[in-house]
């Protein structure tokens, strides 16, 4: 646990200067003074900037969830308001980046690719799970409320703990397994186009966790595999290259107590998936496969 609060800045800065001061230190102090003046000016400028943005017609009002276990004033969660000047094509992520770079550099959120492929910026925007980089501000009503993903613990601001999600993803043996690879050195396995087409959508998952966050069953029951992990299982179970025997094994995995049977076809996963994966459909298909499979032995 790292709950220690870093020494406050005042302390370090006002430490009495008794020791002989080196030239370098003097220079730094000089700079520090200048900097403080400049900062004051900047703060002024910044609030002016915000004021101006607020007044400007083309600005968006964001209400952003803030929380930090270590920082006083943020230990109790609160919402901060940001007014961000709007530009054609601006996404929620762009607005957050702007707010961070221009107003408050401690605003914290995950992001990387800006093109809906890394899956790091799923958040709760105006009440539903959205991938921020893929959500145009112009499609939202103001004020735009940005919160961390529900049903996950908040680490700080908009960052949630993804460990549980990763654990579930990795619980379904999410790797290709087969017992008979072709002989020749440069021989690939054959796969029909139809079969690739069948698994195609399921391979598009970017592990953003939006689906898991939207599913009430997953929220109530931490053991439930959740839509993304089941979809991962689907991706392999339906891949003809793995062979029949492996498919049996895969069905056993998703059939366990907290596998597919927990899904109550809420459809919220399908609704929020930014990659348009038909999750409910995949889950339902696995249920049917599992039932068929069981009937064989009855």
């Amino acid at each position, binding site marked *: 646990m790292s709950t220690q609060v870093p020494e406050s800045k005042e302390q370090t800065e006002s430490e009495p200067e008794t020791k002989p001061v080196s030239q370098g230190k003097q220079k730094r102090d000089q700079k520090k003074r200048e900097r403080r003046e400049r900062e004051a000016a900047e703060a002024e400028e910044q609030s002016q900037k915000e004021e101006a943005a607020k007044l400007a017609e083309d600005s968006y009002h964001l209400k952003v969830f803030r929380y930090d276990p270590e920082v006083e004033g943020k230990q109790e969660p609160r919402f901060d308001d940001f007014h961000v000047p709007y530009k054609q094509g601006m996404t929620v992520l762009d607005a957050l980046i702007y707010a961070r770079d221009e107003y408050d550099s401690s605003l914290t959120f995950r992001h990387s690719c800006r093109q809906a492929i890394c899956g790091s910026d799923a958040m709760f925007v105006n009440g539903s799970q959205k991938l921020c980089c893929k959500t145009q501000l112009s499609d939202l009503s103001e004020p735009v409320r940005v919160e961390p993903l529900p049903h996950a613990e908040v680490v700080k601001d908009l960052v949630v703990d993804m460990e549980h999600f990763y654990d579930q993803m990795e619980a379904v043996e999410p790797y290709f397994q087969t017992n008979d690879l072709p002989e020749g050195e440069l021989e690939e396995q054959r796969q029909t186009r139809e079969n690739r087409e069948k698994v195609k959508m399921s391979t598009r998952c970017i592990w953003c966790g939006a689906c898991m966050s939207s599913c009430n069953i997953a929220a109530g029951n931490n053991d439930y595999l959740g839509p993304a992990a089941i979809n991962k299982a689907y991706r392999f179970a339906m891949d003809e290259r793995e062979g029949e025997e492996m498919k049996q094994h895969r069905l056993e995995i998703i059939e366990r107590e907290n596998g597919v049977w927990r899904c109550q076809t809420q459809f919220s996963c399908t609704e929020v998936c930014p990659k348009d994966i038909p999750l409910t459909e995949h889950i339902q298909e696995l*249920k049917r496969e599992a039932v068929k499979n069981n009937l064989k032995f009855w």
Partner: protein
Amino acid sequence: MAERYSSFETGGRRWLWQRITAAFLVVVLAFHFFLLHFVHHAADVTFAMSAGRMETLSYYSLMVLFLVTATFHGVNGVYNALINQGLSGQRKTAIKWVLVAASALLIVQGIRTANAWAGLPTF
């Protein structure tokens, strides 16, 4: 990891039965409602009329089956809902047996009532 899912209680059977009973209930429930609210009005129901119907074996067995399926379907539904809310371990086992007991009671009581109408012993 996968070990966490080692419980071999596959929910599959209960899931399937929930669907099967649902499909059955659609038909029987519709019949039941129709008979008792539209053909006869509930207000006019008397012991004698019920008794009359119950004496036919087919009606009697249909109603018992109706009772059993409805109980299974309803109680299993409740049980599922509780599991979905994260019920597990001892509490889960406890709830399970409470529900089983309640269902047994319900079914026994129902059959006794039916027997009363059909003129069979009510034990």
